[in-house]
């Protein structure tokens, strides 16, 4: 723990800290462009210069200088001020003065720091360098003349994403950042380089020229595109969400966000259900709420009513449905739309117990039936970190392109019963072994076989289930599970089925039921429905979500739902009146209070505790593992409605050559 003096103030800093980190600890702001906490140190922008004694009598780059005992650091001297002004002047020599037409304007590091640390004017009258645009795909817009060569994007794609595709070609002043042969950046986290870019060289293509940051309303929300529950901020103007940005949460998403979570927001304004529809003679016809309620009432369900929750619904909606059904005398609740029926008696057995941050520290990982890159890109980042620290990874399931060395053990789920010798040995010898069972693994029945693996150590539970639906853990906590899965519900032949945004269900098994779709997009569920009640998407309601590790998180309402659409719980509350039953809440606050009194864990932000793992059962895993996701970009109704996601799917996954739209 070296002691250093910063601007006359002595502080103790952790071993291995750099001078820049020491200055931050002392509360001094050090300007920087290339330095980033989560990337390797490059030291090439020179903006973080400080004066350090002992040392050469010149300013030194603090980001790459280790803090050492007895250093005297000055961040406020004339030398430092002049050095910053000098570096700033050099950086601005070739930087175009196009802030008024630049999308980074208002949230640009270069803009901010040139105001704070730069000279007032320019002394440069020569021609500026110009760089040709580089195509980087449908998500990233480039204006490479603005690039200041910080190489953050290069380091991100190499170190975090694990997909070497961005590089710096040529040298010196001619250096240019580009993807290989200007191919589209084609991985699930590619758009994070937009956040990393300290200038306007890499900006968001779908968001280009849409808005200025200061005119946007910022709302804290949770990403529902997968079960990781990435913390996001929705930027909206008027009634439209214009973009989603990641928030920093080291326990969940660090500061990254998958491209789907980031760019499916344009789907929130397309294919929306904004009217009540009733199917008459096989055709959907616009109707009023009262007509719809009357039609549902006419079905006289009594206790013969079921609710099926979709993948992106919040706990409040599910709880409102559960209460309504309870009041009617039914417990036909299910959230696993595709028919899975794993036991849910002990939720620890279907939880990501090592936690997302914890999986980084695992040293031997067995993945069973999970295409992690597509099912949870942010978990893939963690796995890559674990492998960088020396973890060995084995995968049971069809081959997918990993971003780290991994050994594939075959497609047959039965392999889990007889793992090869070196795998069992690696798991047995590991200090922190882990198993990750994915959706495809659950479908193949490997849960018991995985539970039988010894992956628990003192203070470490390495048994993990990786879900794909944002609503899954919340639904299971609220009891949205039948013993036999959705087949049980079909067998009960309910008169009315409430589909809460359920779009992945095979509706042919409910041919005799009145299907009431309560959701926000005209997707598969709505196509099959008899009555459509328009509801709110995740951006349009306050909601509680539980991610795959059992972390309870709250999302806030950013905008109002379009047209006649209402928040889901109000629709269910009104249905209660139509049926003439009491549900015991008249406001969202009352609903939440009732929900928390029933499931207290949902009231506390943070990890819910599910207790100990159960003993392994005797179910045998069998059959070939088949990943459920066919197309990463089109996994939920919002993404399917999104033009950007459709374009990503066509161009990045199906190789279609799409001409750039003329501006």
């Amino acid at each position, binding site marked *: 723990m070296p002691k250093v003096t910063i601007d006359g103030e002595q502080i103790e800093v952790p071993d291995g800290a750099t001078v820049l980190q020491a200055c931050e600890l002392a509360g001094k702001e050090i300007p920087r462009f290339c330095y980033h906490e989560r990337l390797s140190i490059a030291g090439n922008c020179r903006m973080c210069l400080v004066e350090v004694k002992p040392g050469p009598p010149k300013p030194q780059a603090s980001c790459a200088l280790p803090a050492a005992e007895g250093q005297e650091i000055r961040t406020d001297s004339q030398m430092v001020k002049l050095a910053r002004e000098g570096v700033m002047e050099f950086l601005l020599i070739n930087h175009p003065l196009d802030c008024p037409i630049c999308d980074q304007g208002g949230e640009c590091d270069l803009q901010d720091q040139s105001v704070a640390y730069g000279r007032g004017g320019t002394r440069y009258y020569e021609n500026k360098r110009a760089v040709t645009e580089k195509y980087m795909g449908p998500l990233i817009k480039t204006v490479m003349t603005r690039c200041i060569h910080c190489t953050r994007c290069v380091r991100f794609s190499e170190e975090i994403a694990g997909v070497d*595709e961005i590089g710096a070609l*040529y*040298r010196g002043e001619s250096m240019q950042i580009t993807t*290989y042969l200007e191919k589209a950046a084609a991985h699930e986290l590619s758009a994070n380089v937009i956040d990393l870019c300290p200038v306007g060289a890499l900006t968001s293509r779908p968001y280009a020229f849409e808005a200025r940051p200061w005119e946007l309303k910022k709302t804290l929300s949770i990403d529902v595109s997968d079960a990781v529950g990435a913390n996001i901020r929705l930027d909206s103007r008027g009634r439209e969400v214009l973009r989603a940005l990641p928030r920093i949460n080291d326990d969940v998403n660090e500061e990254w966000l998958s491209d789907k979570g980031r760019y499916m927001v344009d789907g929130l304004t397309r294919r929306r259900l904004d009217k009540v529809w009733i199917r008459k003679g096989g055709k959907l016809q616009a109707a009023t709420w009262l007509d719809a309620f009357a039609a549902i009432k006419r079905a006289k369900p009594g206790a013969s009513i079921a609710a099926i929750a979709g993948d992106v619904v919040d706990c409040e909606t599910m709880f409102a449905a559960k209460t309504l059904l309870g009041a009617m005398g039914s417990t036909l609740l299910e959230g696993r739309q595709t028919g899975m029926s794993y036991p849910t008696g002990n939720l620890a057995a279907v939880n990501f117990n090592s936690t997302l941050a914890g999986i980084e520290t695992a040293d031997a990982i067995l993945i069973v039936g999970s295409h992690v890159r597509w099912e949870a890109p942010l978990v893939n980042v963690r796995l890559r970190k674990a492998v960088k620290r020396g973890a060995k990874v084995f995968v049971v399931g069809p081959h997918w392109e990993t971003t780290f060395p991994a050994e594939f053990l075959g497609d047959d789920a039965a392999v889990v019963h007889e793992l090869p010798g070196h795998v069992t040995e690696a798991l047995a010898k590991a200090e922190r072994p882990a198993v990750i069972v994915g959706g495809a693994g659950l479908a193949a029945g490997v849960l018991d076989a995985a539970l039988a693996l010894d992956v628990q150590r003192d203070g470490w539970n390495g048994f993990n289930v990786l879900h794909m639906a944002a609503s899954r853990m919340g639904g299971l906590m609220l009891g949205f599970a039948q013993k036999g899965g959705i087949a049980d519900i079909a067998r009960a032949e309910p008169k009315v089925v409430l589909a809460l945004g359920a779009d992945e269900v095979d509706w042919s098994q409910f041919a005799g039921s009145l299907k009431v779709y309560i959701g926000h997009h005209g997707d598969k569920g709505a196509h099959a429905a008899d009555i459509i009640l328009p509801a709110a998407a995740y951006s349009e309601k306050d909601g509680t979500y539980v991610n795959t590790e059992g972390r309870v998180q709250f999302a806030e309402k950013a905008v109002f739902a379009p047209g006649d659409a209402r928040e889901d719980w109000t629709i269910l509350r009104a249905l209660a009146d139509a049926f003439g039953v009491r549900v015991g809440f008249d406001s969202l606050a009352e609903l939440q209070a009732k929900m928390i009194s029933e499931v207290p864990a949902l009231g506390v932000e943070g990890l819910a505790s599910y207790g100990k793992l159960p003993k392994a059962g005797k179910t045998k895993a069998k059959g070939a593992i088949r990943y459920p996701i066919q197309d990463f970009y089109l996994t939920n109704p919002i993404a399917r409605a999104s033009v950007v996601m459709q374009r990503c799917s066509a161009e990045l996954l199906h190789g279609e050559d799409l001409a750039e739209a003329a501006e």
Partner: protein
Amino acid sequence: MADRAPHPDTLELRERWGSFAWTPANAEEAKKIVARYPEGRQRSAVMPLLFLAQYQVGAETNTQGWLPIPVIEFVARELDMPVIRVLEVATFYTMYNIAPVGRFHVQVCGTTPCMLRGSDDLLAACKKRGMAKGHTTDDGLWTLTEVECMGNCASAPMVQINDANYEDLTPERLDHVLDELAAGRFPKEGTQDPARHTVEPVGEPTNLAAMMTENHDYRGEW
């Protein structure tokens, strides 16, 4: 420099170079080069392998050699590294030609010592023969490039043609060298000044003269 760009990746290029592989001799050489580096550090061999590949392309096309995109990808596969990292190296160093060059790649040094000793005249002499900077002549014989310091300042001005340095040049001497090369002969490398053997002082030594005959201690005279 700034107009350096990889030759466009076209179907014809893929067809011509897509099946590039080491000749038996070069395969042997490549193995030797890779073996110089410790296990797990094979990527360090990227520079010599790129150079070897450039030579092989040169031998196949009877030019100095260059690196088509498929050949760069071949080197990346050989070393199991991302191709963008190889392309970064190939575009960084000017000794790798990333676009086709002629039979002789005339690299005229234009850095200060050479410039003071008359490199502008050498460039003019080249232009008179029909060469233009960054271009190959129509007969495919010459490619002209102006380069930065080649480290022959003591015998400036100099020109590097393929692997040979020609120093102490005047426009006339350069013309002679180029004529010889065009005729298929190989003129003497090194200094072209008949009065000079190598880079020894021209005429009498002008400094450290006292060192000529015996070891002299200058320190007292500083």
